[in-house]
């Protein structure tokens, strides 16, 4: 596929042109932090951001979305978002997370609400320029990404190297004032990526990530779950900021005519009280410790089982920063288990 070199000024011009014809979401400043938001001027995009408060998952699984409309006592009608959009500046770890949810939402029962948005999107991935304070993507193997995007940008200082991986990406790139990338440019890109593969490691995992499912097999009754959950608010912050969390709740609401209405799905979280509650007040994972364990088992064992071994934590570090009592860091828990059980 096409690989081009494009100056930063030319890239800004390109995005300015894209904004005129399509909705663009990109990382922008939010106080002293960053978050993805609709881009109204290319000058507002912050492509040297470290990490965003929310992962870009929200553009494929919105916090609340309408699945269906209905008539009370009558029929149901599917609802789909038709808008095409560009998602710009997705870091590799977030791209890996999107790739994982693609698989989970298309295998077996095909979720066309999710997949429709996914097809409507053009994703411009972006190699990390500045590491965030809690990122550990290098430890998981998600510091770089090879697939899922339409276009991949790598900042080599004075310019971006842009690699189009799909026809959509190539078409977008064709609108830019860009030169073919030279061998020297490609070497610089390679250097950025190989540096990131080592340096996005603010928390060091003591075992290879691929060993986590085996490690967890021995860890079900380990005291760490009770110990950590002792100070867990069960506030679900770790779920809410996670790029690979996708649990949801579904609710009906009627319109004021009391005859028509909408069925909506909204984000949920396995850490929250009531998540497993069945109608007659029976809650299957009532203890916080059981839920704390469930979250880390999902990331390290249960979901990997569905993904052919791929670990379902991508090392973005968002949960580490979002957890007020500072207990959510998966690396700390997995390391503790490795210390106690690793060689057993």
């Amino acid at each position, binding site marked *: 596929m096409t690989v081009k070199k494009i100056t930063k000024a030319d890239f800004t011009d390109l995005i300015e042109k894209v904004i005129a014809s399509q909705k663009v979401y990109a990382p922008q400043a939010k106080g002293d932090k960053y978050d993805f938001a609709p881009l109204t001027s290319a000058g507002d995009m912050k492509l040297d951001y470290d990490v965003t408060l929310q992962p870009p998952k929200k553009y494929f699984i919105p916090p609340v979305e309408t*699945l*269906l409309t*209905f*008539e*009370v*006592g*009558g*029929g*149901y009608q*599917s609802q*789909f978002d*038709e808008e095409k959009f560009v998602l710009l500046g997705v870091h590799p770890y977030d791209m890996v997370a999107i790739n994982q949810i693609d698989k*989970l*939402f298309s295998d*077996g*029962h*095909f*979720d*066309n*609400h999710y*997949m*429709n948005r996914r*097809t*409507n999107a053009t994703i411009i991935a972006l190699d990390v320029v500045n590491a965030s304070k809690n990122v550990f993507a290098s430890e998981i193997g998600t510091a770089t990404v090879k697939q899922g995007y339409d276009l991949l940008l790598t900042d080599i200082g004075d310019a971006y190297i842009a690699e189009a991986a799909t026809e959509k990406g190539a078409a977008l790139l064709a609108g830019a004032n860009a030169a073919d990338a030279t061998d020297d440019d490609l070497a610089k890109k390679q250097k950025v990526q190989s540096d990131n593969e080592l340096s996005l490691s603010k928390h060091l995992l003591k075992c290879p990530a691929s060993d986590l499912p085996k490690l967890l*097999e021995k860890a*079900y009754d380990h005291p760490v779950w009770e110990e950590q959950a002792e100070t867990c608010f069960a506030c679900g912050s770790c779920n809410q900021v996670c790029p690979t969390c*996708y*649990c*949801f*709740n*579904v*609710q*009906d609401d*009627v319109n004021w005519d*009391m005859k028509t*209405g909408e*069925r909506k*799905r909204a984000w*949920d979280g*396995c850490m929250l009280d009531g*998540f*497993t*509650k*069945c*109608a*007659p007040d*029976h809650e*299957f*994972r009532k203890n916080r410790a*059981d839920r704390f364990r*469930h979250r880390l*088992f*999902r990331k390290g*064992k*249960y979901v990997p*089982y569905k993904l052919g071994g791929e670990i379902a934590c991508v090392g973005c570090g968002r949960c580490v920063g979002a957890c007020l009592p500072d207990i959510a860091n998966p690396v700390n828990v997995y390391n503790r288990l490795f210390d106690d059980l690793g060689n057993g």
Partner: protein
Amino acid sequence: MCECCTTKKDIYLPQLATIEKMRLMNDTEMYFRFNMDDGPMDFIPGQFVEVSVAGVGEAPFTISSSPTQKDGIEMVVRRIGNVSKALHNLKTGDKIGIRGPLGEGVYPVEEVKGKDIVFICGGIGLVPQRSFINYVLDNRDDYGHVTILLGTKCHNQRFFQSELEQWTTRDDIHFLETIDEAHDCWNGNVGVVTTLLPKIESELASSEIMVCGPPIMYKFVLMALAEDNVPHDQIYLNLERKMKCGVGKCGHCQINNYYACVDGPVFKYSDLGIAPEAI
């Protein structure tokens, strides 16, 4: 919309069905028979459907009729949550939304042909088991000795009473019933369902055991079956959870590695060795 999304059906879209019959079976349980408006639905015993009352919500209910019964699909709804209460308030001829049949973990209708079967049912656990029981009774020659054990909390919570009476009089099955709490109106067995196990006539260790009941029941049934050395690959547990989406996405019904909605709701016990949350 893209091609792959238009060619695949919306997994969250209910199909309309019409309620053909409703009957209150006791204080809390309502019997329903419904027909899909677009023609009959094929299913296997153990499968469930997500039932919608538009404006109120959606909830899972296991099919209680046997696929051999061609006249509509039956279910039993206990009045507890928003959806079940709304269902109780409907009337014959009303429309409901149905998604299904759902669940890939079903009763082993083929696998256990020719073998002795013991059904252990606790209370409302009779509802899903009844689908397989009636399937076996409609194909009686295909199966060996059939035993049905039923435990109910109070005598006035018993339901499908005329069907239970028929089972009592049939000589090709062995039906035993007990209630937890003694009562003047009840002169049968008293005690929990496991107290019936010593009374069965077939060899437990060589039987295929189907278990369904309230969450608390499983542990005690499994302890009792362990005493008789029943191999774990002959025990089938119907494990119902909060199956919100029914298609393995929403996460509410997860039992360790498994989703009750797609991997179950019927599980072979030997497959659940690494799922401590199951019991």
